[in-house]
């Protein structure tokens, strides 16, 4: 039996303002992302990449359409869950451009906090944090504060934090923007590994052409509309 998509976006539109000041940030975007795949979203500034990421991340309410995350219909003309933060905690991991580690927590605490927010005990959360740091190869830096970590190490801790609650969806906003080519490639390899081993759907917003070869598919957004991946539509499990 064919696998179900982890992210199903159908006809999502989002506009800001009314009348002559109305801006259509997203126009009828449909997108399926399957487990184990890493897709890229590219496009010029203002094309709607971040808006789409915010919508899939349940941070921004669309104007119309429907959305299913990990099989659960979460939006259909309106949010179907009141506790969107709980939904994010449970289903989505976020990776940011500038890692966004909490500056007052060390590496393992930054990972553990996500687990604790989801209801785990501090002891369980610590065990999970160290497991993830080991998995990503930076266990020896578990007690380092964010300011003591290199850019690559910090981004790996951020990836570990995104994985803390075993989410099926990982949203990454320009995760390699602040890294050199080598570290950017390492981070992308890490995301591919996570997608493959955790059967997660990874959506990456990027401008970084150096990493385009690391994606299963790359989508372009232009004026709020999603263009199909060049030459890949038929062969890919990612559908528009």
């Amino acid at each position, binding site marked *: 039996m064919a696998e179900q998509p982890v992210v199903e976006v159908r006809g999502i539109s989002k506009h800001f303002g009314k009348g002559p000041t109305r801006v259509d940030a997203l126009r009828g975007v449909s997108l399926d992302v399957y487990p184990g795949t890493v897709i890229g979203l590219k496009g010029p500034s203002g094309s709607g990449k971040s808006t789409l990421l915010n919508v899939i991340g349940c941070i921004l309410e669309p104007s119309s359409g429907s959305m299913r995350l990990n099989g659960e219909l979460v939006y259909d003309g309106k949010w179907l869950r009141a506790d969107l*933060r709980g939904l994010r905690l449970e289903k989505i991991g976020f990776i940011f451009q500038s890692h966004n580690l909490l500056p007052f927590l060390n590496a393992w605490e930054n990972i553990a906090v996500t687990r604790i927010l989801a209801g785990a005990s501090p002891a369980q959360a610590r065990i999970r944090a160290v497991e993830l740091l080991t998995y990503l190869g930076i266990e020896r830096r578990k007690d380092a504060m964010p300011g003591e970590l290199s850019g690559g190490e910090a981004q790996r801790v951020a990836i570990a934090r995104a994985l803390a609650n075993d989410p099926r969806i990982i949203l990454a906003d320009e995760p390699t923007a602040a890294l050199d080519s080598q570290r950017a490639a390492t981070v992308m390899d890490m995301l591919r590994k996570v997608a493959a081993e955790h059967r997660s759907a990874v959506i990456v917003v990027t401008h970084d052409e150096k990493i385009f070869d690391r994606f299963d598919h790359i989508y372009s957004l232009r004026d709020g509309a999603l263009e199909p991946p060049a030459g890949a539509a038929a062969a890919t499990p990612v559908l528009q």
Partner: protein
Amino acid sequence: MNLALKDISHNLGRFLLTCLGLSLLLGIVLAMVGIYRGLVVESLGLVRAAGAQVWVVEGGTRGPFAEASRLPGDTREAIAAQWGVASAGGVSYQNIEAQHRGQTTRLMVVGAQIARPGEAPPVVEGRPILRSRYEAVADRGAGLALGEQIRLGRDTFTVVGLTSGLVASGGDPVIFITLRDAQKLQFDLAPAAARREYVRSAGATGTTDTVNAIVVRLLPGVDANRFAQDIVRWKHLAALTQDDQETVLARSVIDRARRQIGLFTSLLLTVSTVIVGLIIYTMTIDKKKAIATLKLIGAPDRRIVGLIVQQAIAMGVISFVAGAALIGAGHGYFPRRVVLEPADSLALFGVVMVACLLASGLGVRTALKIDPASALAG
């Protein structure tokens, strides 16, 4: 994992420095309350030292502390002869400036009769006044040593005993001498012209024997209020019970100081609240990205509110404890007595906690308005 404590320990130096500043403010607030309590204790100390149950004063006055009161000295005999009186003594009070060790010292001179109500309370060093002339019992606050001599008016007095913590409502240390010496001192200190008039009028009747009040102790079972009412019938006399006297003193002498100190204390607490509010607000602004990230990854609002409120409370607790410790250690160096009562400290602690909660409101409001999407912005 307590995020508030983690954040505090991350910025420990800045947090403690802020607490230090706030602790000085709260220490001053505590000192103000202590100064007020000290003022009450000091003011009532002299009234209570007399050991009176009833104060007989000049008719139509509420003397001798709130208003001037003058009575013929022989009124004491008339009062002492009343039914129910155990003992009665004439007392006089006057503020003077005396030269002592080359410096001018302000003193409250109390003239009292030996072994009668109104005389000096038990001494902590030396002995009570036993001779009818030129002996004094001084409070330690006057800076006089046992056996030391001090010139008051035209006469020199030897300090034979010392009391402790006995000052007038103005803060002047008290020195007890005999009533006879005090009456002479009053006469000696009057300007020459006044003295001449005094001799011409009062001298014609052959007396300078006046007192400011008669201090009365009653026999057991005699009602002080009833006795005071009986005395008032004499028209030219007024009488106040000890409770009345303390109330009058509290209202007329202490009340304005209480309001002044109360106002100042309120202002300081308001300033402290504003400072806590601004600091917490600044700390929240500094954490804007961290808060947005926490919201984005799914932290509920109560976690965010807890982070800010706990920091405000921690700031209040640390500052209060440091301020209280500072004043506790330094209250002996204040020129006026500072009385620190646990109940006052507890009440102030409660006020500080409420102030911290109020002050954290601005930070909480700011934090709750932070858009989680801002965590995604570069």
